[in-house]
């Protein structure tokens, strides 16, 4: 069951997607609503699961994590591997931020954050290549990244 949005809802979502700490008062002023009316709309979007939480954005390089790598992983002998065992093991690696099960040339997509290339190599050799069932792996180092507002325009 999906939620229907009007233009005001979309404007609110655009504002919160840029800054989730905005309160109902500044949101209301920006979209032409009173504070309680804005609050009710934000509440409705949250209750409906459209606003699904928050993401803190940090300067990873300033924190000493200079390398982000996207990894495509193909499992070796398909059908004979317990996916849950693989997923549990890969999820437990602290440097792995994202694990997605996909269909296509790879079975899983991973996002890995490392301090530098030698640190990434260590994670790849000691943590990833030793995972149960892991087969072919392809690494691509992220040079730049941007998030788009999506279909809220």
């Amino acid at each position, binding site marked *: 069951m*999906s*939620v229907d*949005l009007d233009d005001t809802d979309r404007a609110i*979502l655009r504002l*919160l*997607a*840029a*800054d*989730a700490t905005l309160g109902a008062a500044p949101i209301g002023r920006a979209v032409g609503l009173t504070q309680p009316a804005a609050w009710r709309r934000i509440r409705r979007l949250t209750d*409906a*699961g*459209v*606003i*699904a*939480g*928050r*993401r*803190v*954005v*940090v*300067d*990873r390089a*300033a*924190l000493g*994590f200079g390398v982000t790598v*996207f990894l*495509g992983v193909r499992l070796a002998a398909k059908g004979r591997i317990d996916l849950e065992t693989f*997923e549990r093991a*890969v*999820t437990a690696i*602290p*440097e*792995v*931020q*994202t*694990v*997605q*099960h*996909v*269909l*296509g*040339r*790879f079975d899983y*997509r991973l996002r890995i*954050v490392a301090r530098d290339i030698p640190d990434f190599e260590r994670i790849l050799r000691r943590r990833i290549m030793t995972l149960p069932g892991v087969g072919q792996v*392809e*690494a*691509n*180092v*992220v*040079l*730049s*990244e*941007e*998030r*788009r507002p*999506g*279909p*809220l*325009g």
Partner: protein
Amino acid sequence: MLDDTDRRILRHLLADPQADNAALAARAGVTAATLWRRLDRLRDRGVLQGTEARIDWRALGYEVQVSLRFTLDKTEPRAFDAFTAAARDVPEVTEIQTFLGSVDIRLSVIARDMAHWQQIWRDRILALPHVTDIEPLMLVATIKDTAELAL
């Protein structure tokens, strides 16, 4: 420049971005005043860049999510700029990454259903400029998604 207290605060903040300041201060073992001051300083230095709301596109009826990996024509000097500008014009694109590796650019694209996906694919994706190869990975499930760092 960052000390252990900063790192501890950031670790707890990244682990639970929903936590209010009182909970965060308690977990990091600092007073509310210290937490406030430290967060302020991290923001001033540009280490903390902001907090975004996460939008669940599925709740808005977007059931399909595809990761598209592109190889571009490197003999064309403007390929990256032209491709990126065109990709930004597609409303269903939610992420753009450029890479060093066998893939040049990746897009996250969402669609309401397979019919909608087919329409985006034909009308928008195949029209993107300077592409030599496209490889789609269709999302089945997100098992883990966090901004946490091994601080």
